[in-house]
Each structure stands twice: as C-alpha cells, then as structure tokens.
C-alpha cells in the first residue's frame, strides 16, 4: 500500500511536467510581455532588453520551459507581474481564500447530494423525486454566472437584512473574525453548492437505483434486516464508488479556484487571480496556479483510488 502510494506520487512528476511544459509553450507562443515595447523601439531598447532577460525571451520557445523547471527545482516560482508579489505568496494567500469557500462548498454539496440521491432512489417516481429532479435540472441548466447573479440579487439586494448579508464590493478585503468570514462566504458557497448538488445528485440517484436493484439487496431484506440497514449499509457502500470519483474531481476543481463564481462575488481567491494572469500574460502566475491545481487533481485522484480499495475489497492496490 505504501509502495503503491509512493509509486503513484512519483508517476505524477512527469505528468505534471508535461502539463506545465504545454502551458508554458502555449502561453509563450500566444503572448509576448514586450508587446508594448515594440512600438517605441529603438527608443526604449533598455526596457525591452530588461524584460527579455527577466523572462529568458531570447531562449527558443520550445526550450524556454526548462529554465522555468530549473528555477522550480530551486523552489523558485518567480514573481507575479500582474499582482506584484512573489507567486508563492499569491498562491498561499489566494489559495487560503479559495479553500475558505471550497471546503464548505464541497462538504455541503457532498452531504446534500448523498441525502438527495438516497431519497430519490428509494422513492423513485414519487412527487419528491420529481421535485428534486426538476430542481437539479434547474441548477444544471443555469450557467453558473446567472445562478450567482440571481443569488446575489435575492440574498444580497432584495433580502438585504437577512443575516446581515450585504452586497459585495469589488476589491473588498475578506473579513478577519469568524462571523465576518461566515457572512462573506455564505453566498459563494451557496452558489457553488447548488451547482455541485445538482450534478452529483443525478449521478448518485442513478448509482443508488442500480444498487438497490441488485440481488444482494434482496438477500439482505430476506435476512430480516430493517430497511434502514439495507439502504445505509448494504446499498450505500456499493453505490458510493462512482460518487467517490466525482467527489475527488469536484474537490480538486473547487480547490483550484472557481473562476466564474469567485469573480462574480469578488472573492480574492485563485480563480480571479488566474483570469488576471491570463489577461496580463503573467506567465509565472499562470504556471504557479496550473502547478497547484495539477497537484490537487493528482492528489485527490490518488485519494479516490485508495478509497475504492477501502470500499470494495475486489479493488486491490498493489
């Protein structure tokens, strides 16, 4: 098991390198940080040369990523030109802010998706099932920015006095005491949760329905087990396997920062930083975020693979 985990973690190194190489080359081919300087050459030759040197722009595009890899090996992520701070510092503070909404959104959506899945599967084609199915399609059909704007309007503007939630101002700093943080994260967490509950409850319902039709569920009932135990012990453990896959993907996506939702709520997380980096051709920042999200994806996939083995003895890891 330990050897398996080490092997899997080592195998991610080339994977991440390929991803980072592709991103580096892609950005270098499409943008040039010296764009503005071309207009004033040769008058501003000095500035042009400074940037050329800072970003190793005289190195061939296809070889340029290796200079970045070399500095990465020394623990150097570079400086974010758009934010004006070291990339490591940006990732730390922004990543923390993202986690503040990603973790609650993940937990809430996982719990609710699970409860709704079990309810809908046990009461297939009931009024409640149709209601939640309709709600889920509603949540899925709305683009996330529309949903976020509706939530902002309803809870931030129309119901201004609800729990003291106020509309967000752009550029506002996050609160520092727990109550302020709770107030600030409520709406983005709600917005993200609705999206993920909608998608996951559909998968969960299908998985649970399939499991409840298995012969071993009938065996469990024939033993005289109460329905509660049949559903929450015998069925759930089998039905969880596809959900674990989803949850691993969801969590790594959420921790990587949701570009749209965070931007709409002016949440100073990784999502808006990534957008800003893209617009400003801030290559070090983009690569830093790609590295971080890549590591999250790989790590939570590994967690999911380990969870499969825990849930289902037929899946052996060695």
């Amino acid at each position, binding site marked *: 098991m330990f050897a398996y985990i080490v092997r899997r973690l080592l195998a991610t190194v080339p994977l991440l390198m390929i991803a980072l190489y592709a991103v580096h080359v892609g950005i270098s081919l499409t943008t040039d940080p010296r764009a503005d300087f071309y207009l004033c050459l040769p008058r501003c030759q000095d500035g042009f040369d400074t940037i050329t040197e800072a970003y190793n722009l005289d190195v061939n595009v296809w070889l340029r990523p290796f200079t970045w890899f070399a500095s990465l090996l020394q623990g150097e992520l570079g400086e974010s030109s758009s934010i004006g701070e070291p990339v490591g510092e940006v990732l730390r503070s922004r990543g923390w802010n993202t986690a503040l909404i990603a973790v609650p959104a993940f937990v809430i959506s996982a719990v609710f998706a699970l409860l709704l899945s079990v309810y809908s599967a046990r009461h297939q084609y009931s009024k409640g099932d149709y209601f939640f199915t309709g709600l889920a399609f509603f949540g899925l059909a709305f683009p996330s920015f529309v949903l976020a704007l509706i939530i902002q309007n309803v809870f931030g503007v129309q119901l201004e006095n609800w729990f003291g939630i106020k509309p967000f101002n752009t550029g506002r700093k996050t609160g520092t005491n727990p109550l302020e943080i709770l107030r600030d994260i409520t709406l983005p967490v709600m917005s993200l949760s609705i999206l993920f509950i909608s998608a996951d409850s559909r998968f969960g319902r299908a998985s649970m329905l399939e499991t409840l039709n298995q*012969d*071993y569920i*009938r065996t469990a009932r*024939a*033993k*005289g*087990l109460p329905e509660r135990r049949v559903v929450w012990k015998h069925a759930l453990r089998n039905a969880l396997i596809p959900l674990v896959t989803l949850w691993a993907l969801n969590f790594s996506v959420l921790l990587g920062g949701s570009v749209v939702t965070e931007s709409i709520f002016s949440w100073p997380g990784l999502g808006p930083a990534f957008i800003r980096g893209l617009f400003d051709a801030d290559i070090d920042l983009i690569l830093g975020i790609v590295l971080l999200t890549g590591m999250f994806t790989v790590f939570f996939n590994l967690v999911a693979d380990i969870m499969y083995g825990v*849930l289902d*003895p*037929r899946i052996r890891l060695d």
Partner: protein
Amino acid sequence: MGYATLLTLVRGMSGTEMSEPLLKVDDMSVSFKTDAGDVRAVSNVSFEISPGEVLAVVGESGSGKSVTALALMRLHPKNTETTGQVMFDGMNLLDLPEPQIRSIRGRDIAMIFQDPMTALNPVFSVGEQIVEAIRIHNDVSKADAWAKVVDLLQLVGVPEPKQRAAQYPHEYSGGMRQRAMIAMAICNDPKLLIADEPTTALDVTVQAQVMEVLHDVQEATGSAMMLITHDLGLVAGSADRVQVMYASRLMERGSTDEIFYESRNPYTRALLASIPDLESVKDKLDSIPGNPPSLLNPPSGCAFRPRCSMSVPQCAEAVPELVAFGGNHASRCHLATEIDITTGVNA
C-alpha cells in the same frame, strides 16, 4: 391406560400434526402494475406445506413460481398487489406489520436464491454477512456468532471454514457461494426454507453436490422446504410432493409418485416427456411446441390450450377447475378424468 385409548391418542397426535400445516397459502394472487396494464403473475394459488415436508414447485420461466415465493415473504417489488391469505404460525403474512414480517424473514422462513454470484454483497466478507443474519435475530456476541458461522460453513462443506469465513464472495467459486448462501439460510434454524432454483446458475458438476448439501441440512434441521425449480430431475430425488405451475396457475399437484407416474394433466405429461431418457434412441428431444403465453394478454380458457395436444373446444371456453383425485392429487384440466394414466409419458 388401555391399548385402544393409547392408540387413539397416538392417532390423535399424529392426526393433529398432519392437519396442522406450517404454511397455508389460500387463494393468493399477485399482479404487477405496469405501463402496459396489469400482469397477473400468480392467480388464485392455494397450497400447504407441513413441517419437515419438501414441496417442489415446478414450472417454466414466468409461470409464477418465484413470484409466489417472494410474495409470501413480501419481498416482491413495490408495484405489486397481493390478495389472498398466507397463514404461518397463526399469522397472515400478507397483512403483518413490517417489523413483524421482518422478524420472520431469515428466522422462521429463510430463502436461498438462484444466482449465488450476485446474491451475496461483494463488499462484505462471507462471514460478516452470515454473522449479520444471526445477530439481527439473536442477542449473541460477535465472537459467538462468528464461531457459529465457522461451524455452519463446515456443515455445508466449505473447506477450511475458519479462513474462508473471512474471505469475500469474489474469492469463492459458484458452488462454494451457494453453500455459503445455504449456511446463511439455515443459521437461525428456520421452520421453512425456500430454495428458488438453487442449482440453476451452477456448473452441472457442482449441481448435484449443492443439492445434496441442501438435502442434508434440510434433514438435519428438520425444516420444511419449498423447492422451486424447472428441473424435474431434481424433484424426483428430493421432493415429497410436487405442484406444477403454468402461466400463473396451479396445473397439478400431488405426491411425487402421483405426478411422475399417474399424472392427470397434459402439461405435466408434456413436461415429463421432455426429460431426455438415456435408454431410448431419438433424433430429436421431445419438447413442448410454442411458447408460454403472455400474462398481459392471456388466452381465453385454459392457458395451456394453444400448446396442448389434447385440447377440445371446451378448453377455450372456460378455465378448468382443479379436479381432485383423492389424497392431495388434483389436476386443472377439463379432461383430467379421461386421461389414461396407464400409458407411460415417455411412450
């Protein structure tokens, strides 16, 4: 006490034992509600099982034999309607409250299912699953239940039961899984075992072994057994009584001998004739022409009429009643009294 009074006493005792069935199914019907209409899977079936008796229920796929078994344990799907009465231990199983029927399931009536590959939960060890069946009905410690599981696995012929108990279903072969299912079914000494095609999904080579285990445990525990099968060969060796079902109805019932040698029903006779016989030389095996009828839209009169070699115009007019022939023997056929039972079915 005089000899005569003793005799009447003994007679009286055995008499009450004989007349007190363990399970009495009275006029049970089961319908499935589907989008295409109601499907009647079981129509007005009545039968009894006495303590310790083996009753075989024989019929083709879709004849209603499995549904009968599931319905009397109330394990049928939600969209079904069951009418009639199922008396067990003085209770009507069909209208018992849920907690009470649950305490009967697995304790008084246990079931063995057709496909051992899918009937065990893949994510729990075989031992855990049997321990659960024991502990849901008995207040025993985990360790005691586990010890009993090892004994049970030994009893049903699982080698190295101590190690095997901790293994998962996927580490068992098909025959071993069915043995484990049998162990699970008998773990609470049920009064009635329902075996729904227990050997159908198994390799031919292990079918006989599993049947033997089932027979042995049934004798050892003294429980009654309802053996559902389409394999008449299985029936001959192990059943006291047989009832034949076709298209949701009981076609014929009687002792095993009566069914095999004095059958008064064309369907039973056709089934018997389709058993291959080692001695006769044939180009083609006998079979019953045609297919079982759709239960959504059953034929008028006798359901077997379209495939019956003996049918007469009367057969299309009315569903025949069960005609009794003394003892327990009865046949649902307009011509039941006219069938010549002296000719062998294989002739």
